[in-house]
């Protein structure tokens, strides 16, 4: 009885800490998320204003034409009338409007898609702390992670995904798995970011999913600076970090490891070479062979 309360308490405390780390992570991302929404809203607004002006111009040109047409049916049109309608056409800049309207519409629709995908990804991250095991679409979870992190990644790396469409729903605790993806992809982006700061080229993050036996398998691979053998053992320790204050607290990988191995009875593999990059592979049992629940 005694010991049970004790473990209960420490589990509670651990979860509280994990929750805090997740919230910190998301907190750091809000500026980037705002940026990703503000940008499309800017050009959608500009395009709509252009469309509105353009529509007015075209409408008044149409009126000119209409007047010209009625005049033409009543009597022979004079040179003056002809000149007037021609001047109206030149003033309207029909060529420019005609060329730009379709693009303005297409880009605006695309912009709205960008905003919506961000909003829906945010929704995926808003049910944190439900802690329920249920079948979940993990390809979608990965995609949401990438969208949420777009602003963090896009200045330093490209993302290449290779997701297996046949991946079945995985019995898991989705908020925990999402934390796993979030932490691994943030780490990958940071690692590439460090190389980039030192003058390296734009990096690449490769993310894939596949089925292997009874497991759903995910790989997150970066072309970053790699992990040196000296710290390889330490990185899973809680509070071990090589990042400066404000950038990392050293909790990411310890949470990842616990979520994957203890909570989901899965496996975590790491392959890394200094100066080449790092690959994390996550194995999650599809049927959700959980130990505790």
């Amino acid at each position, binding site marked *: 009885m005694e010991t049970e309360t004790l473990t209960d308490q420490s589990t509670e405390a651990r979860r509280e800490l994990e929750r805090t780390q997740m919230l910190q992570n998301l907190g750091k991302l809000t*500026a980037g998320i705002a940026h990703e929404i503000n940008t499309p809203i*800017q*050009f959608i*607004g500009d395009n709509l204003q252009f469309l509105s002006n353009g529509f007015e111009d075209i409408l008044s040109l149409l009126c000119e034409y209409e007047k010209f047409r009625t005049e033409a049916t009543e009597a022979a049109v004079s040179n003056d009338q002809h000149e007037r309608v021609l001047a109206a056409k030149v003033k309207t800049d029909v060529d420019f409007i005609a060329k730009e309207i379709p*693009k303005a519409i297409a880009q605006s629709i695309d912009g709205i898609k960008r905003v919506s995908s961000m909003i829906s990804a945010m929704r995926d991250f808003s049910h944190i702390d439900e802690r329920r095991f249920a079948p979940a679409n993990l390809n979608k979870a990965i995609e949401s992670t990438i969208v949420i992190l777009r602003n963090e990644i*896009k*200045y330093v790396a490209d993302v290449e995904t290779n997701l297996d469409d046949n991946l079945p729903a995985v019995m898991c605790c989705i908020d925990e798995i999402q934390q796993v993806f979030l932490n691994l992809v943030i780490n990958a982006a940071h690692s590439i970011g460090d190389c980039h700061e030192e003058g390296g080229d*734009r990096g690449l993050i490769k993310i894939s999913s596949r089925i292997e036996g009874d497991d759903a398998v995910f790989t997150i691979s970066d072309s970053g600076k790699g992990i040196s053998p000296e710290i390889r053992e330490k990185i899973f320790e809680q509070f071990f970090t090589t990042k400066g204050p404000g950038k990392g607290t050293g909790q990411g990988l310890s949470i990842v490891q616990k979520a994957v191995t203890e909570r989901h009875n899965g496996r975590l593999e790491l392959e890394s070479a200094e100066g080449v990059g790092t690959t994390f592979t996550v194995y999650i049992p599809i049927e959700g062979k959980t130990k505790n629940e």
Partner: protein
Amino acid sequence: MSEVKRIIFVDDDEEVLDGLRRLLHKMNGEWEMDFHQNGSSALSAMDKKTFDIIVSDLRMADMGGVELLEIVRTRHPDATRLMLSGCSEQPMYGKAVSCAHQFIAKPCDSEQLMTQLSRSFAIRDRIRSQKVAKVLPSLRSLPAMPAAYKKVLDMIEDPRCTSRDVGQVISRDIGMSAKILQIVNSAFYGPSTKISDPVRASVYLGIKAIKALALTDGVFSTLPEEKVEEFCVSGLQEHCVRVGALARSICKTQKMTDQQQETAMMAGILHDTGKMILISEFDYELAEIIRLSRVEKRPCHEIERETIDLTHAELGGCLLNLWGLGNDIIEAATFHHEPAECIKDGFSIATAVYLANAIDHQFCSYLSTGWSEEIDMSILETLELTEQLPEWQRVLIPTEAEEHEYA
């Protein structure tokens, strides 16, 4: 300055550039516009042609907006630098604040953008002097009094000091006041109405942000001690603080709102901003101007117009305008030696500042002023305020301690 008005836009998002290009297409006859997707291509375009205004995004791959605008500041000091950004990240503020004249937050509506651009062109037209045009836009800050700046640095390290305390110190210094108002009124911090009181500005920003700003290179700067001495800058600063207080009292007797009184106070403090610019950038010319003014018994601003083509009043007005401060403050600074302009629309904050300045020059003069004009009584008659004058003058009768200092 070039005949054609040229703007260069830089944004790493092609769609944003397309949107702007379409939106501004109707301005084609008046403005020539270039659009670039990265800093280096913008820079090489600027080497080939002269641009009046650069509008840059903040976060861009390769060369960021801060880096770009810093390069532009040194290579093309006379270009107006605006930042159009969708970013709201705290740590970037400080640096961004020191390299851009003004910020526009994405998303901004088209009217706001057009107004901002037209306003920037209007300011440029007003800076007639070639000499000044080369210097003014490249100014990152107005120098502060070394003692006041040091006090601020000490205070931000002291856990007992509040943002209000720091604001109080800032509000007695022309350079730091102007800067903090530029920052607080920029789109990044973006209050919905303009703030014109440095104390309120400090409280609004909070001690952490003030600290970050104060420690960012280029946000605040100080005058070298020799100049402080040569031009008796502490006397000038105190003159400005008194003019602020008096302008507020005058507005109070005219039953203006609290908000207007607050603005009048700031307008008074900043009215001689141009003098600070002269002291920091044109000290050689200024010494000569002051000398001539005394010998010829003519006001400084007349001689300034002859030597550098602009008066300190106009110069200050231009900088405050470039930095996006409120219109009342800009007007008061610009016209504080032109009484006729100050009463064009009846009694205004500019009128109050004109009067406060003239009254203060009558009663207190600090060492390095030139020759001062009398108050223009005709404007008091026009506004039917002649009777009020003695009352306002009484506000200024110096206390004993002050008398000792400025006698």
